[in-house]
């Protein structure tokens, strides 16, 4: 496991995931749309001849860090499995059964943490798992899908992403766990965190390029004054004509 966490992705898998991330969002086509909002400033990803992709934003190294950081969730899964099997196992009360009975709590005890949503990832039967454990069975399935498409020619990564989301890739059986849609949603979620969380290792302003393209100015370490709010209000009023 430690080797896996030191280097969670193979070079081939990194390339595959980089391409998949590109197909997931279509950032390059987006920023080149004629009618799209154009943020102010001389932005390097908008320079002539540049292609704007998730790779520019260092999303895959960020993803690898995420796999390492959340590996401890498996321990929590073990704990929750023990509590689920025996919900009163860790009670400090000396006679918890009679305590419950006295209080009219006669139903068989249950542990509801997964259903309450205070967990991040679960397997098919509701056990809490880490990102690494979630993704590990996905990698060979993804490779199978990509290999099959490569045999047919150049891979259309946008189409591949859409097919995975719709559980329509024949090489990823619908009986597999997790299904391809669950994989794609989780991977896209992690990519969103990489692109909008503004903590990836890409240099400024690349780290928050997607936010800038959205017109979102918020970023770690930002600070403003009432002059900024005053100017923004004036601009709003001018735009609204009020």
């Amino acid at each position, binding site marked *: 496991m430690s080797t896996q966490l030191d280097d969670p992705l193979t070079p081939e898998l990194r390339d595959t995931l980089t391409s998949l991330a590109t197909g997931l969002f279509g950032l390059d086509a987006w920023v080149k749309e004629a009618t799209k909002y154009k943020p102010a400033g001389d932005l390097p990803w908008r320079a002539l001849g540049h292609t704007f992709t998730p790779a520019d934003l260092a999303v895959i190294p960020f993803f690898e860090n995420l796999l390492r950081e959340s590996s401890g969730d498996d321990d929590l899964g073990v704990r929750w499995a023990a509590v689920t099997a025996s919900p009163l196992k860790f009670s*400090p009360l000396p006679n918890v059964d009679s305590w419950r009975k006295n209080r009219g709590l006669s139903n068989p005890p249950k542990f509801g943490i997964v259903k309450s949503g205070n967990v991040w990832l679960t397997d098919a039967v509701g056990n809490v798992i880490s990102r690494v454990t979630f993704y590990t069975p996905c990698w060979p399935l993804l490779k199978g899908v990509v290999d099959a498409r490569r045999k047919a020619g150049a891979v259309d990564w946008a189409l591949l992403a859409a097919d995975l989301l719709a559980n329509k890739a024949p090489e990823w059986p619908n009986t597999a766990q997790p299904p391809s849609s669950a994989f794609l949603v989780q991977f896209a979620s992690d990519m969103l965190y990489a692109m909008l969380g503004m903590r990836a290792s890409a240099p400024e302003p690349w780290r928050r390029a997607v936010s800038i393209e959205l017109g979102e100015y918020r970023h770690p370490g930002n600070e403003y004054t009432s002059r900024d709010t005053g100017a923004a209000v004036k601009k709003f009023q001018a735009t609204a004509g009020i």
Partner: protein
Amino acid sequence: MEIADFVVVGSSGGGGTISWLLAKAGFKVVVLEQGADIAQPLEDTLANPLDANGNIDEESLKYNPYSHDEYRFRLKRPDTKRRLRGENNNFSSSAAVDAAPFGGAWTASVLGGGSIIWGTWSFRALPIDFRLRTHFAATGQLHKLEKEWGYSIPDWPVSYGEMEPFYNVAETLLAVSGDRAAVNAAVRNSAWYKQFSKLDYFRKAGNWQPKFPFPCPPYPITPVGDFFWKGAEAAGQHPVPLPSGMVAPGTPSYKTRAKMQEALKFARPGGSFWKQSAEKIWSDRVRSACNLCGYCGEYLCWGKEGPKSSSRFSTIKELRDLPNAEIVTNAKAYEVIYDARIRRATGVRYLDVSDPDNPRPFVQRARHVIVACGAVQSARLLLMSGPPAGLGNSNDQVGRYALFHLFGLGITATLPQKFQGILHGEFGHTGNTTSFEPYFVKDDVTKSDTAGLWWKAGTMTSTAKKNPLENADGKLRGKSLIQRPLLAAMEAYNRTLEVRLTADDLPMASNRVDLDPAFVDEYGFPVARITRNFGGNEQLMFQLVESRLRKTCDLYVKKGILKDADITFGKAIVDLIGDHQMGTCRMGDDPATSVVDRNCRLHEVPNVFVVDTSFFPTGFGLNPMVTTVANALRVGTWIAEQSKRGNELD
């Protein structure tokens, strides 16, 4: 501490405030907080704001972006700032339906509690909020409300007048930014006020036009706030800057002691504690001004010296200076120890969950116990304590009359593409401008017997969209959007704002918290079961407020900026139980119908107090923080005074 005078369970606006006052009054106080001190890294990384000469070192007040992390503070699970990792509440909309685990009804589980992650909307209640029963009796609506709709609407045992000097101090501790004259005018000019202020009981409910100035100037208006301001004005409303519990941007560093001096000079609360000089009451600590960074609601404020007000950065900091006070974090209380022979509590049992896999049980003995864990968890703790029916619960009142406000009630407007990048949702906290116009709403919609009468609602406030990652993740997971449709949704979010109504839900006995018969937490304790549904007044609100909310956008519709289709109305969601939880330990004079007396002391166990939002007999339709802090000051003052007079509290 072997035996404390007071053990206080919880450290938010209620527990954090009263523990400070009692320790300052000389009592031995132990605070038990089940969560960790998530603000500690700020203190570890920034220098002391006072240099060797006692002058303010401005460099040390610069921000620390440690907490500027949307994933960590809003998405990550387990969300341990909200609740301990193995905790949940259960929810049911009816006693006839089995309750199921859900994610709501938590404020926070950190040192400082909900005051760490709150939205800072800082309203004091209006005088009529303390006399709602009198009001509806006078208007002839009480029969409908109580006999037909099943509410139980009491007057508060205390009046606005009793609370007023403590409101002044509470606003001082919370460094509230605002414009008092504007708030007074907004209230005075509201249609409901004009209607009712002619009536004697209404005028006499209290001081409708307080003169105490807010300790900080108004928070700057943002584009989202301006949108609402102009729209509300055009609709005949009287918008004001939202009173906010933050040191206003651009103001000099906030000196609580000096502000306290002004508050005491203005109106000194009764009791010997407040006869002391401000120097005796408060240290020379300074707080830094807000830098509008925008990581407020749900986040830990960037500032070591608390630009955003919380007990953690005010009273708890002061408490830490005192040798007779102790704060224990990661202390999950699970029983108020009750001695049936003497009908008194003798302390609190808790688990040290610093290492949650290996919790260690402890007992903190004390002469008095103060429960302040939030309305849901306070009821749960009392029901897990004492006799099988629960502590202070002989009359089956603990947990009843739970109040949560109407969350999610409002309109969402998405502006056209030319507004991309214009709204600047990142400025400051979520709310910005507000209106008291819908505090009471006249039924001009239905043709039923409610028509023509005024019903209780709350305030209408502009709210910005501040969490683009959370929105994008929600669109991905909830609507399976990827590629251009996802990017389009992310773009639209930047041009979207809300006008949100924070409205009352009136008290019903059937809306309650009790112990779930089946579900337990990690340590085998029954979780809280919340049964809650909307009554007739809330249902009526869904019909009455939509047109009023939409009217605030009429200006923009007329200008062709918005189309009706760009504006969506959202009713409150019954299990969207937000950060405002109140009731469950109702304050009243009659033990048969209430849990605590006017001094927040259990009717049945005289050395146990409940000093958070649980005591609220009604919920105002306003953020409860200012009232919670003011009440904690009031009760703490009473306790200190009784002790000084030699009266045994127990």
